[in-house]
C-alpha cells in the first residue's frame, strides 16, 4: 500500500496549485495568505516527497528496480508516445529531496527577504511554478516530459530574472538567459530526435535498455550514441552554464537573491548534471562524449574560478563560483564518477544556497549594497549571517569535515584515475580548488573584516529577521554534515552515498589498498591547496585594502575575458544586422507585406473591373441569367449533341 508513490503526481501538482492560487487571486490577498499558500504547498510537497521516498525504499526492497508509473497519455502520434509517466529511483530520491527541501527553506527565507518588495504574490507564484516544473523534470520517466520540465524551469528562470522588469538590465538579463538556453535546448532537442529515430521511443527505460545492449563506441569514434550524447550535453551546457554557454548565469544575478539561491545555484542549473547522470548509460557507451564532458567541465571550473578571483560584486563572485562548481560536477560525470557528481550536486546545493542566502542577508543588512568594496567589518554587526557565511565558505573551500571536502575530493580522485590524461584534468581541477578557496576567503575578508568602507549615517546595518536566519542555520548545519555519508570511506569504510546510488550507476569502482592510500594523499593535497588559497587571501586582504585601478591581467579578468563583447561581436551583432536589414526590410516588408498588399490591390483591381457588370440594369442581369442557362444546357445536352464523343445515347 503506497498511497503517495502510486499517486506521484500529487508532489508536483501541489506547487502548481499554489502557483495558480497565488497567481490568479494573490493580488487581492494579504501577505499572510500568500505565504500560507506558497509555503503550505511547497512544505506539503516536501513532506509528501519524504513519504514517497520512504515508500519507494520499501518498494525497492521487494522488487529491485526503479518505480515507473504512467498516468496519462500526453502525446500519441503514430508509434510515438510521450506519456505523463513519472518514475522514482535513487537518483530521483536525491534530486526530489534536494529540490523540495532546499526549495522549502528558500521559500521561508523569501518571505523575509521579499517582505518589502512589490509584486509579492507574483514572486511566490513564479517560485511555485518553478518548483512544479523542477519536480516534473526530476520525476519525468521519459525525455519528452523531462524536456517539459526543462523548458518550464527555463521559463521560470526568465520570469524571475526579469522580476524587476522595470530595470532594463534585468529584462535584458532575462532575455539573455532565455536565448542562450534556447541554443542549448536546440542541441537537446536534436539529441532527443536522434534518440527517437534510433530507438523509436523516448522512455528512459526503453532507450537505456536498448543502449546497454549495443556495443559502446570506441574512443574517438563518432557513432550515433556519441553524437546523441554530445547533443544532449549541449543542452546541459546551456542549462548548467558550461563553456561556451555560461554567459547568462552571471547576468542572472539581476534577479532577487533567493532566486539566485534556488534556481541559479541549488536546483535548476544542476538540471544539466542531473540529465547527464540520468542518461549515464548513453554516455558510458560514448567515451568520446565522456571525454568532452570532462574537458568542458574541467575547463569551466578553472576558467570561471579565474574570473571569480577579481569580481567585486558579492553575488557575481558567488555566481562564478557556481559556474566553476558546476564544472566540477561535469568533470565528475565526465570521468565516469556520476555518483560523485551527484554527491557534489547535493552538497553544492546546500552550501551554495547557504552562501547565496547569506549574501542576500548581507545585502539586506546593507540595504541593497552589493559591492564588496562598499562593505567591510560586518562580522561584529551581523553575527549569525557571518557565521553561516563562514560555514559555507569553509564548506566550499573543501576543508574537512565539511561537505564539499568529501564530494570535491571524490571527484578529483576519480579524475586522477581517469585513463585519458586524468592527471592533467586533476591538476587543473586542483588549481581551480585553490582559486576557489582564495576568492571565497577574499569575499569573507572584504565583507566581514577590514575597516568599514560605507557611510554609517546612510546605511544602518541590522541583522535579518528570524525567517531569514533560521533557514541559514539549517543550511549551515547541512553543509557541515551533508558530506558525512562518505566519511567512512576515508577510513576504509564504504561510501554510503555511492552505495545508495549504486543501483542507478552500478557499483562504485573499488579503489583497493592502493586506491585507499592514494585517496588519502589526494585529499591531503586538496586540503593543502585550500589552505594555500586561504593564506594568500589572508595576506592580501587583511591589511588596509583600497581599490586599485585594475590593469593588465586583472583588467582582463575583471572584464571576464571580454567574452560577452566577443559574443556580441561574433554572434549577436551580425544576427541583429541580418534581422534588421534582411529579415525585416527585405523579407517582411518586401515579401510578406508585399504579398498581402499585392493580393489586396489585385482583388481591388479585379473588383473594379467586375463591378462594371453590376450595373443594376435588370435587363443586363437577365442576359447574364441566359448565359448561365446556356452553359447549364450545354453541359446537360453535351452527350446528346455530341454522340460522336459519348456514343449514341438512348
Amino acid at each position, binding site marked *: 500500500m503506497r498511497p503517495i508513490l502510486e499517486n506521484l503526481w500529487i508532489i508536483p501538482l501541489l506547487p502548481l496549485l499554489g502557483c495558480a492560487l497565488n497567481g490568479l487571486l494573490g493580488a487581492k490577498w494579504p501577505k499572510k495568505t500568500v505565504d500560507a499558500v506558497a509555503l503550505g504547498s511547497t512544505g506539503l510537497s516536501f513532506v509528501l516527497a519524504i513519504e514517497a521516498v520512504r515508500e519507494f525504499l520499501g518498494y525497492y526492497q521487494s522488487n529491485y528496480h526503479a518505480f515507473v508509473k504512467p498516468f496519462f497519455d500526453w502525446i500519441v502520434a503514430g508509434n510515438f508516445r510521450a506519456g505523463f509517466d513519472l518514475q522514482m529511483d535513487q537518483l530521483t530520491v536525491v534530486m526530489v529531496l534536494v529540490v523540495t527541501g532546499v526549495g522549502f527553506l528558500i521559500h521561508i527565507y523569501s518571505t523575509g527577504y521579499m517582505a518589502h518588495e512589490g509584486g509579492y504574490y507574483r514572486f511566490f507564484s513564479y517560485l511555485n511554478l518553478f518548483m512544479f516544473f523542477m519536480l516534473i523534470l526530476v520525476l519525468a520517466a521519459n525525455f519528452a516530459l523531462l524536456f517539459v520540465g526543462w523548458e518550464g524551469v527555463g521559463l521560470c528562470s526568465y520570469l524571475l530574472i526579469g522580476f524587476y522588469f522595470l530595470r532594463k538590465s534585468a529584462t535584458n538579463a532575462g532575455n539573455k538567459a532565455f536565448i542562450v538556453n534556447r541554443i542549448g535546448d536546440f542541441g537537446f532537442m536534436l539529441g532527443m530526435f536522434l534518440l527517437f529515430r534510433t530507438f523509436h521511443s523516448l522512455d528512459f527505460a526503453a532507450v537505456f535498455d536498448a543502449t546497454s545492449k549495443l556495443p559502446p563506441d570506441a574512443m574517438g569514434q563518432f557513432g550515433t550514441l556519441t553524437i546523441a550524447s554530445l547533443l544532449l550535453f549541449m543542452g546541459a551546457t546551456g542549462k548548467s552554464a558550461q563553456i561556451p554557454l555560461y554567459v547568462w548565469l552571471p547576468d542572472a544575478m539581476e534577479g532577487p537573491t533567493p532566486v539566485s539561491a534556488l534556481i541559479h545555484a541549488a536546483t535548476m542549473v544542476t538540471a544539466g548534471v542531473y540529465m547527464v547522470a540520468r542518461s549515464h548509460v548513453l554516455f558510458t557507451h560514448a567515451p568520446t562524449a565522456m571525454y568532452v564532458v570532462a574537458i568542458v567541465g574541467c575547463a569551466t571550473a578553472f576558467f570561471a574560478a579565474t574570473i571569480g578571483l577579481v569580481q567585486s560584486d558579492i553575488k557575481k563572485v558567488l555566481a562564478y563560483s557556481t559556474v566553476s562548481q558546476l564544472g566540477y560536477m561535469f568533470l565528475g560525470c565526465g570521468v565516469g564518477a556520476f555518483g560523485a557528481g551527484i554527491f557534489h550536486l547535493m552538497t553544492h546545493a546546500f552550501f551554495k544556497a547557504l552562501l547565496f542566502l547569506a549574501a542576500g542577508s548581507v545585502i539586506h543588512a546593507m540595504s541593497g549594497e552589493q559591492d564588496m568594496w562598499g562593505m567591510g567589518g560586518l562580522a561584529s554587526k551581523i553575527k549569525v549571517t557571518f557565521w553561516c557565511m563562514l560555514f559555507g565558505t569553509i564548506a566550499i573551500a573543501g576543508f574537512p569535515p565539511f561537505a564539499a571536502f568529501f564530494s570535491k575530493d571524490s571527484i578529483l580522485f576519480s579524475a586522477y584515475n581517469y585513463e585519458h590524461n586524468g592527471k592533467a584534468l586533476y591538476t587543473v581541477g586542483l588549481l581551480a580548488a585553490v582559486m576557489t578557496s582564495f576568492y571565497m576567503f577574499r569575499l569573507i575578508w572584504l565583507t566581514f573584516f577590514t575597516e568599514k568602507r560605507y557611510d554609517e549615517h546612510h546605511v544602518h546595518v541590522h541583522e535579518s529577521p528570524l525567517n531569514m536566519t533560521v533557514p541559514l542555520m539549517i543550511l549551515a548545519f547541512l553543509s557541515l554534515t551533508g558530506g558525512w555519508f562518505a566519511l567512512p570511506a576515508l577510513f576504509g569504510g564504504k561510501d554510503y552515498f555511492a552505495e545508495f546510488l549504486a543501483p542507478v550507476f552500478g557499483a562504485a569502482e573499488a579503489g583497493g589498498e592502493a586506491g585507499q592510500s592514494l585517496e588519502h594523499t589526494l585529499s591531503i593535497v586538496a586540503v593543502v591547496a585550500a589552505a594555500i588559497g586561504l593564506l594568500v587571501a589572508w595576506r592580501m586582504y587583511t591589511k588596509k585594502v583600497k581599490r586599485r585601478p585594475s590593469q593588465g591581467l586583472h583588467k582582463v579578468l575583471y572584464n571576464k575575458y571580454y567574452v560577452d563583447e566577443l559574443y556580441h561581436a561574433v554572434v549577436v551583432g551580425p544576427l541583429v544586422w541580418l534581422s534588421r536589414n534582411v529579415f525585416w526590410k527585405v523579407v517582411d516588408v518586401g515579401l510578406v507585406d508585399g504579398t498581402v498588399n499585392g493580393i489586396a490591390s489585385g482583388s481591388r483591381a479585379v473588383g473594379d473591373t467586375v463591378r462594371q457588370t453590376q450595373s443594376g*440594369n435588370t435587363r443586363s442581369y*437577365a442576359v447574364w441569367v441566359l448565359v448561365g442557362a446556356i452553359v447549364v444546357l450545354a453541359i446537360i445536352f453535351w452527350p446528346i449533341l455530341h454522340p460522336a464523343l459519348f456514343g449514341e445515347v438512348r
Partner: protein
Amino acid sequence: MVPTNYYLILSAILFGLGIVAFVFKRNVIAIFMAIELMLNAVNLAFVAFSQSFGKVDGEVFVLFVIVVAAAEATVGLGIIILTARNRRSLNVERVDLLKL
C-alpha cells in the same frame, strides 16, 4: 392524334418567346408576364409528357407549378407596387439603384 413532339416544339417556341419578352420588355409587370409565359410553356411540356407516358404525375406537377406561380405573383406584384410608388417608374432600366 397529335404527336407529342408537336406539343414539345410548341412549348419550346413559347419558352423562347418568353425569354425574348423577359429580355426585351422594359415594364416590370410585362417582364413578370414573360416569366408567367415561360412557366406556361413548361406546363405544356409537362402535360404533353404525362400524356405520352400515360402517367398523371406530370399534371400534378403542373398543379404545383400553378400554385407556385400564384404565390410568386402575389408577392411579386406587391413588390412591384411598392417599387412603383417609391421610384415613380415601372421601367426596369430606370430602377437601377438598391437604395435611393
